[in-house]
């Protein structure tokens, strides 16, 4: 047993009957219609509650929740810059630790959250995140992965999937869009020895919220990579975010799993996988792909899924009832 499994021994999760009513991220923010990222943020924060300090990277979720003098935040919230949310939260957590110990404050159960988009996490903020994970602060880091720099107009990131057309990896006569494979941030977090790492998506809200809850119970750093559809950037319908996120899981493009003290647990087994073409269909960012390219992607998706299965020790038997 490790520190995470110890902390989760008596874990009682959320179900459809006991969802918290609290909305730390209140409605009325300025996200685009159908935004999957703000939905993920909302679900995650419902599971956290308001006894938390939240540090935000620059990006869509910062801009749309904090246009002065308005705010969507019911928790204390701090935005500093694009690439440093993990370092900022390290400072906040250290400050609370020192001040609680020195009896300057009495808030020992505060939860420390940092979040960033895929650009803030996998690209420019990778070093700060690596430092925070390695130092072992008692923090939770969310990466809201919409697979591009959306806030600045859909530029590619290292988390943009192979073949996706973005404004800096445009499909053209001599280009099939993004030419590199998506960086696997969850595995990078695992490699740091973080006691709790998980993947999630708002298409499976109970699963997402339970993972967040677990992350909050585990001492030390927790990392959750949250796949978050963006209709504006993915060029799909504003009513298709959840459908696409579900297809991402069902097609094995984005498998849901947890890594607790380094041990892998599959959150949902994909028994009858859908072809990636079904996942691509509603998204115009993939429209240009040739059959050969689709085949190549399918091959790699299958291969990656097999690799993941080999690491799994336990499959979660309880299926989510949704």
């Amino acid at each position, binding site marked *: 047993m490790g520190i995470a499994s110890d902390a989760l021994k008596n874990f009682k999760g959320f179900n459809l009957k006991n969802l918290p009513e609290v909305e730390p991220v209140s409605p009325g923010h300025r996200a685009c219609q159908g935004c999957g990222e703000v939905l993920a943020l909302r679900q995650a924060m419902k599971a956290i509650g308001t006894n938390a300090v939240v540090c935000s990277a620059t990006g869509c979720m910062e801009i749309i929740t904090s246009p002065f003098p308005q705010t969507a935040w019911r928790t*204390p919230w701090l935005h500093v810059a694009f690439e440093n949310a993990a370092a900022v939260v390290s400072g906040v957590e250290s*400050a609370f630790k020192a*001040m609680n110990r020195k009896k300057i404050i009495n808030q020992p159960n505060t939860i420390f959250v940092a979040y960033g988009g895929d650009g803030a996490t996998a690209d420019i903020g990778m070093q700060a995140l690596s430092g925070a994970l390695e*130092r072992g602060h008692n923090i939770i880091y969310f990466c809201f992965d919409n697979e591009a720099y959306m806030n600045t107009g859909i530029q590619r990131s290292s988390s943009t999937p192979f073949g996706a057309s973005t404004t800096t990896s445009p499909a053209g006569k001599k280009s099939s869009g993004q030419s590199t494979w998506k960086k696997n941030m969850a595995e990078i977090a695992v490699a740091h020895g973080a006691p709790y790492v998980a993947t999630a998506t708002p298409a499976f809200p109970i699963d997402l919220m339970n993972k967040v809850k677990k992350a909050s119970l585990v001492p030390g750093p927790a990392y959750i990579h949250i796949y978050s559809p963006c209709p504006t950037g993915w060029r799909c319908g504003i009513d298709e975010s959840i459908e696409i996120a579900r297809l991402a899981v069902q097609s094995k493009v984005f498998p849901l799993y947890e890594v607790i003290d380094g041990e892998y647990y599959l959150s949902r087994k994909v028994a009858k996988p859908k072809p990636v073409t079904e996942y691509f269909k509603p998204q115009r960012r993939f429209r240009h792909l040739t059959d050969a390219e689709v085949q190549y992607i399918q091959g790699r998706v299958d291969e990656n899924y097999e690799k993941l299965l080999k690491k799994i020790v336990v499959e979660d038997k309880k299926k989510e009832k949704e």
Partner: protein
Amino acid sequence: MSKQIGIEVSLAVAEAVGLCDVDVVAAYPITPQTHIVEHLSELVADGHLDAEFVPVESEHSAMSACIGSSAAGARTFTSTCSQGYALMSELCYIASALRLPIVMAVANRALSAPINIWNDHADLMYARDTGWIQLISESGQEAVDMSILGFRIGEDKRVLLPVQVNLDGFTLSHFIEPLTIPDAADIKKFLPPYKPALRLDPDNPATLGPVGMPDIYTEARKAQDEALKASKPIIAEIFKEFGKQFGRHYNLVESYKAEDAETIIVIMGSIAQTAMTAVDHLRSQGKKVGIVRLRVFRPFPGAELFNAIKGAKNLVILDRVKSFGGGEISGPVALEIKSVLYDKQHHPKVGNFLVGLGGRDVTVQNFEEMVERVASAKIGDLPAYEFINVRE
């Protein structure tokens, strides 16, 4: 009782910061700042200082963690210089805009390239527009006192700004000097516990660092500017209070034999000590030379400086950085002073000299040369700046 001891200045600064009962230190090593943070981590490790030492992976994260820590309401310290300062500079603007009274010691060092670990004021000047208060030490004692004063000034409710305590790398940071480290109880009396006006508090949530649209950005900037402007008399007031309690008296601008001087050397930092030797020598030859030293560079004490130099016919202004701008623009210290002189319609002869770059020695002879150069020049003959002690 305060004690006088012989101690390396870096260690003394760390001791003083420790006596200020900081809660969080987040820092990254860089020569010649290392001894300051090494000693602080030692104080924590030995249980002499009850603080969190956050060994961050870069200076960028050092200042990021300091911002998080200070916003959480903790007394927060860091230290850096040169490349480290440059790396964290993005965040330095944000620290002041968020009105966080972080104290940072900068063991002033040259900027690359070529890479050079020795002393000049490149990092000090890099920081001048960031909205921080900049204090400058001449001696180890001053570095110690400025560190204590930094917390008191920055945390004053009327100020709430971060403070940079500058001490020359190596020539101060690594010197062993006899100096007085104030007594913990005295420091406690002078520096009450930090009570933030606003903190990241789950019981009282606030949104910090929001988006500022064009309709409020200018107002936000103006409010910040007002704070820095208003800090000048408060700094002077706190210096006075410090003098009363500790017997060491500081001013925004310091003078040495300047009252009747025809030629005044304007200077910052530890080379003032060499300048004093030169002035004593020139005075012994009957030459009326004095020194005016800026202790505070931001907020710029224009009025106090003018009062100190207005009687002089010749000004020898030293800059310890090459701030690139072409041949017609003086160095940063001279630029500020020239703008004060212009506003006062006052026209002494001004010579601006770039000296002591990247650890180059500045000798007594160099000072005499500069004084002679300005004194003997015809009005209008002096260039915007010139290098001294340089191979062609």
